[in-house]
């Protein structure tokens, strides 16, 4: 039996010490770089302790909860480690540990150079706040932790505050997060009023006490409130603005786990607070998931800023997770707890998997950025020779995120497909057609993601370097490589060992739907994954990996049989007879995605501008200028008008504020009268 409670508290203490040490280091301004390393060590310790606590929480038979009265009405610092919380703590601490290891070598560079100690203090604050978000058991406490996360994340995003892009990205994030929290407040208050308590334990299944209208309203408020954080379309616009401008280890945590706080909130509300919901609720979540996945990957394809590309992929993967959640809601509405559990497992497993490989990819992008000083893929190339380890880890992440076997992304996408397939037979009416169509669009999304990561890896790491910086790039330090290695290993283990990981979900599905199905999902002595029963389909990632190794060595046999004289010469790539292939002959990221830009022109509305100056005739251009851009649909057509409307209303409201004290007194007086009247009537 693990001393779960002690581990949990010790982890929080380690984070707190990290914050204190960072602030102290910043104020005194002494020995900055070793203090920063010491704080990274503290956050590593904190993460490992929390990891232990998470395992303890998952193994424990009941909930572990303890609370501290605050002395403030309604608020008490209640903490509960139920299976769902423990699962998210598990994901958080895995990522936090590898990011801490990575940060040993990373802090003290570029944007964090000015005050690494302060930077590490904020990093610890973020980890502390997230731990509290995932474990808080009181609405007010949850919202306090939620806001603390937002504040810590804001300071980390704008840490490089001298760059206007960072400030703008941070501000956008902060504003949208405010809007989201506003919705959460109202939604939670509606639930709390019905339950008569602010404790999460009292909110379990509270939806039965709500009138349908209020229930629906609270559901939508909470879904979209959490959706802002998760980055669902159309509430995603802050994500590609804020994630890339943050220091890379922060981007890794933001995309890996901070946006998952939104997913945690949804899981908590959908499967803990709400019982069976009407069909439209599940359909809404499913449709939002499909749209987010597809548009997310399409926008990612158009990016040649490596970190923005990854940020858009977060939108895509949140969509895939929501496909699982939406299906689970639908199955519960139609009374199929087994299938609901399968779909929920698909969504939750993808949550962890996406955290792992996205964190890995962002750390890889951070290493590339560190080595080349640019996020623009068109300036990269040839890095696989200069940074072989980083390239390998990034490749593993790229295969995993593309959902290719035998890594972890494949497993959770496979479960998602199986859940969607089962949906056709298990639901009545035309609702059933939604499932296979969603499945087909998931296939499109996954194939586009593969195309996008061929581009991201190929343009960044392969062929010839496209710039001086890429030419002279050097491999990153040992600790940065280790941070990536941990996550790359996790991608492999979660893929190959999925059958041994699945029992983790039993307690969660048991709590949500009263069934534990991990036994049904595993067959063949733990080597086969099934879709609920072996009849519906099986897959084995371990066997696929082994078979690929065996079959891949077949060609060597042919070599042997034919006694090949092994003449293998290195020669120049075919240059069409014009000697000297240079990086200018290479395909660029923009060119790579051109066919898709043309095919989806209706969405992208690409605009291009060509200016050429000629000498003698049109066949001898002297200089050439090419510009191409796509229309940011949501920014232009949704948020643009919204901003204009807000500005025009505020400028009209400004007339109220004349600067005359007499008028202000009159306002106070009128308000008082109105309130009195209202009070008398009430």
């Amino acid at each position, binding site marked *: 039996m693990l001393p779960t409670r002690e581990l949990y508290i010790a982890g929080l203490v380690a984070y707190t010490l990290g914050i204190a040490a960072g602030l102290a280091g910043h104020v005194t301004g002494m020995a900055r770089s070793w203090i920063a390393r010491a704080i990274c060590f503290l956050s590593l310790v904190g993460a490992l302790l929390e990891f232990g606590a998470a395992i303890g929480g998952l193994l424990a038979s009941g909930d572990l909860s303890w609370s501290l009265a605050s002395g403030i009405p309604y608020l008490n610092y209640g903490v509960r480690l139920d299976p769902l919380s423990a699962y998210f703590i598990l994901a958080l601490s895995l990522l936090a540990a590898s990011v801490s290891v990575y940060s040993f070598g990373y802090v003290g560079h570029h944007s964090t150079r000015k005050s690494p100690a302060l930077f590490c203090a904020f990093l610890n604050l973020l980890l502390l706040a997230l731990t509290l978000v995932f474990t808080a058991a009181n609405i007010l406490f949850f919202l306090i932790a939620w806001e603390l996360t937002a504040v810590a994340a804001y300071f980390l995003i704008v840490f490089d505050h001298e760059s206007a892009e960072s400030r703008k990205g941070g501000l956008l994030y902060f504003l949208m997060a405010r809007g989201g929290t506003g919705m959460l407040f109202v939604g939670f208050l509606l639930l709390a009023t019905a339950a008569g308590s602010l404790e999460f334990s009292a909110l379990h299944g509270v939806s039965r006490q709500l009138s349908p209208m209020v229930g629906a309203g609270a559901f939508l408020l909470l879904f979209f409130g959490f959706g802002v954080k998760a980055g669902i379309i159309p509430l995603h616009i802050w994500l590609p603005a804020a994630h890339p401008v943050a220091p890379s280890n922060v981007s890794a945590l933001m995309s890996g786990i901070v946006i998952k706080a939104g997913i945690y909130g949804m899981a908590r509300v959908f499967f803990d607070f709400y019982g069976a919901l009407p069909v439209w609720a599940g359909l809404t979540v499913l449709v939002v998931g499909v749209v987010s996945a597809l548009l997310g990957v399409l926008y990612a394809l158009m990016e040649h800023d490596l970190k923005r590309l990854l940020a858009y992929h977060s939108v895509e993967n949140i969509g895939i997770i929501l496909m699982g959640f939406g299906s689970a809601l639908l199955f519960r509405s139609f009374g199929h707890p087994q299938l609901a559990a399968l779909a929920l497992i698909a969504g939750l497993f993808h949550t962890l998997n996406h955290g792992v490989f996205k964190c890995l990819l962002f750390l890889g992008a951070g290493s590339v950025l560190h080595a080349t000083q640019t996020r623009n893929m068109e300036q990269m190339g040839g890095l696989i020779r200069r940074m072989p380890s980083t390239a390998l880890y990034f490749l593993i992440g790229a295969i995993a995120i593309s959902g290719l076997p035998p890594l972890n992304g494949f497993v959770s996408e496979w479960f998602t497909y199986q859940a969607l397939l089962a949906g056709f037979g298990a639901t009545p009416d035309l609702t*059933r057609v939604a499932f296979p169509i969603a499945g087909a669009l998931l296939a499109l999304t996954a194939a586009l993601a593969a195309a996008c990561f061929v581009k991201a890896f190929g343009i960044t790491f392969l062929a010839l370097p496209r710039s001086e910086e890429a030419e002279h790039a050097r491999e990153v330090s040992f600790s940065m490589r280790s941070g990536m290695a941990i996550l790359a290993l996790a991608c492999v283990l979660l893929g190959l060992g999925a059958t041994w990981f699945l029992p983790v979900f039993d307690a969660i599905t048991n709590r949500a739907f009263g069934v534990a199905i991990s036994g049904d999902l595993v067959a063949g002595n733990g080597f086969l994954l099934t879709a609920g029963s072996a009849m519906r389909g099986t897959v084995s990632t371990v066997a696929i990996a082994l078979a690929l190794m065996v079959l891949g060595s077949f060609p060597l046999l042919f070599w042997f049989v034919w006694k090949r004289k092994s003449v293998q010469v290195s020669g120049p790539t075919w240059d069409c007879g014009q000697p000297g292939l240079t990086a200018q002959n290479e395909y660029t990221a923009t060119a790579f995605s051109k066919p898709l830009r043309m095919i989806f022109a209706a969405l992208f509305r690409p605009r291009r501008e060509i200016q050429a100056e000629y000498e003698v005739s049109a066949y001898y251009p002297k200089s050439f200028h090419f510009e191409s851009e796509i229309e940011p649909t949501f920014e232009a057509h949704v948020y643009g008008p919204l901003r204009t409307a807000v500005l025009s209303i505020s400028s009209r409201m400004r007339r109220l504020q004349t600067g005359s004290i007499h008028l202000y007194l009159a306002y106070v007086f009128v308000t008082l009268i109105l309130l009195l009247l209202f009070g008398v009537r009430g």
Partner: protein
Amino acid sequence: MSQPALALIAQVALVLFLSPLITGFSRTLKARLQTRRGPGILQPYRDLRKLLQKGMVIPDTASWIFAATPYILFATTLLAGLMIPTISAQAPLSLLGGVLAVVYLLALGRFFLALGGLDTGSSFGGLGSSREMTIAAIAEPALMLAVFTVAIAAGSTNLSTVAQSALGQSWRFLAPSQMLAFAALFIVLIAETGRIPVDNPATHLELTMIHEAMILEYSGPYLALIEWSAAMKQLVLMTLLVNVFFPFGLSAGWWQPSTLVSLVLFIGKLLLLAAAVVLVETSNAKLRIFRVPELLAVAFVLSALALISTFLF
């Protein structure tokens, strides 16, 4: 040796050594339809043998990805071939992964092939990779939806179960849903195997190349592996079509007198399908690349209709 192990070896041999025959047959038939004589059905075998014995030139810009790609492509395609029922309804490795794994294994091979194209630093490689990934992506929803239609009818994604269920109702292919799904998959087959009107396997003209552009820098044994994998991929997709929709003659086990009949029937079905593809190839002109999405959209609509008609009938 136990029965399953023998069946596994038999299917490995079948996939490896039958696939060049289908390619050779297609080329010869195409030549005849164009009133050429053609090099003979066995030419692909001779090509492979010769390429495997040759030396090779590795571009000096390329990294280990370039060298690993042929092996990975070969392994993924062959493994996909072992999960599909060929002669017997019971495919040797069907438990390892159903139709989803087959599709994703082929995607894994393609992922590396596209990287191999980019690795050379030549514009041709990038051009081929870009087009290959684009066409594969837009073919994917039609492919998956058609596959779903079949899987839903059988209640399983396991291809052996699907084949057995189809075997139980031999005339099921006459159902509207099955016919529509077959039509959709036929279009996808043409796109995925790079045949006219989507891609032209015989061209080396830069404006029209897709697959050939990607593998332009490969030579010798590596090229042999890639050509062989392309032939195997064609066999895998064709087998998927013939055995899921027309499962006549699939034998129940591997070592029965009927197995030989099944083999003959299987080859016959494949040759018929290959002939159909060749007929489409010779009677059509290659489409402009930006017209290809329209063709694949037709495939998607067909498979969506297939799905909805399962619901109606």
